[in-house]
């Protein structure tokens, strides 16, 4: 091969080079911020999920302050992270970084609704300077129904036969709501309809089973059932 002269160098202090240096700074700053937000979102997701598990524990065994305390600690952690996100976004257009923070926010929303459904101490949403888009809200709600379905099945397993009927009522309303919205929302929302339908079917089936098996009481040894019931109520009172 033959070697030819290399081109003359570009003057590094020309106007073009100067402005591209500023572009470099601007882009790097933006990417760095995006990265920080992705990391915060991951943390929020994980901690929110853990709080949900904590609440399921509380619901199944409401034996006290310990779990509630623990959940308060966790919640504080999540709120701190959310505050960090809010700080990162001060003066920014949040939609610019929406993709980075959306998963974490949805998981958090789900958690906080779950919490307020089951715990009346804490019904008002936490004030933080983050705006939640309706789509994120809907997706959070859809995800919540999955947790509620799990709660319903657990309730039946724990012998609690009121919760399923209440939950089926509530889930049906949400399902009807999603049906009403249908495909007017973005694709992600209509995609959730299918999962939602399945969750609802599980809850409806659970109620059906309760009803069907309940139908047998009167005919078989009715008295016996009543005595058992009294017995157990006594026991329960003894415990509390």
């Amino acid at each position: 091969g033959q070697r030819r002269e290399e081109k003359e160098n570009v003057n590094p202090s020309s106007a073009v080079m100067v402005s591209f240096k500023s572009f470099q700074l601007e882009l790097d700053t933006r990417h760095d911020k995006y990265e920080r937000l992705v990391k915060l979102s991951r943390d929020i997701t994980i901690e929110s999920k853990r709080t949900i598990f904590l609440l399921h524990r509380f619901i199944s065994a409401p034996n006290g302050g310990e779990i509630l305390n623990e959940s308060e600690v966790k919640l504080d952690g999540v709120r701190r992270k959310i505050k960090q996100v809010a700080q990162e976004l001060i003066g920014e257009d949040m939609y610019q970084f929406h993709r980075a923070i959306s998963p974490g926010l949805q998981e958090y929303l789900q958690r906080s609704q779950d919490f307020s459904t089951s715990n009346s101490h804490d019904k008002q949403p936490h004030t933080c300077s983050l705006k939640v888009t309706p789509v994120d809200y809907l997706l959070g709600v859809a995800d919540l129904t999955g947790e509620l379905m799990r709660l319903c099945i657990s309730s039946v397993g724990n012998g609690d036969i009121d919760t399923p009927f209440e939950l089926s009522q509530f889930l049906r309303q949400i399902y009807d709501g999603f049906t009403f919205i249908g495909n007017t929302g973005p694709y992600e929302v209509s995609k959730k309809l299918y999962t939602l339908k399945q969750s609802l079917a599980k809850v409806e089936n659970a109620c059906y089973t309760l009803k069907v098996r309940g139908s047998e009481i009167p005919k078989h040894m009715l008295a016996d059932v009543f005595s058992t019931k009294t017995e157990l109520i006594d026991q329960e009172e003894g415990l509390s």
Partner: protein
Amino acid sequence: MSVSEMFIALQSVLTADQDIREEIRREVQALEQTAREMLTLLQGVHQGPGLQDVPKKCQKAREHFGTVRTQLESLKTKFPADQYYRFHEHWRFVLQRLVFLAAFVVYLESESLVTREAVAEILGIEADRERGFHLDIEDYLSGVLTLASELARLAVNSVTAGDYSRPLRISTFINELDSGFRLLNLKNDSLRKRYDGLKYDVKKIEEVVYDLSIRGLNKEATGGAGGEK
């Protein structure tokens, strides 16, 4: 005619076509809105007390079909009658949904399968291709299959609501439907796939009937329901 003149002429054709599609899309959106409202209305039958006011719900739904007819009437005017299949994809989905809604209402009213002719009449369109804006046979069948899975859900929820006779009647109906579909030699892939789902609906309903039978609730039901129906 120069090349650019020719392309200007072509563009005007393309624009006309795009305008038609735009208008169709608008009409279809309105139809979807009505269909969604009807769906929300009829889903009420799954709620505990919903089964009581079935007749009232059906009547309201019938009123909605008035709106649907007006909207379909308007849709028809948006494109030349012989180009149905050119734009079919636009309204295919909503039409299937409307077929389902009509079939559901008719089932709730009379516990019978709506015919293609009857659906067409409810929707104010033709059953017959030659006579104008019509109901494609595959769209009709697709809507009917949706009915089947809705009835499977209804069988479950009827029991929860304490109505033990309905599942038995649904079971008979769905078995008839299943035999009907088995007469068809389906090539259309999406329809065939949806038909495979019917099998699960049949099974689900049979299990409901089983649960009632083993507890003797089916007899109780037949007794009580005789008067109800």
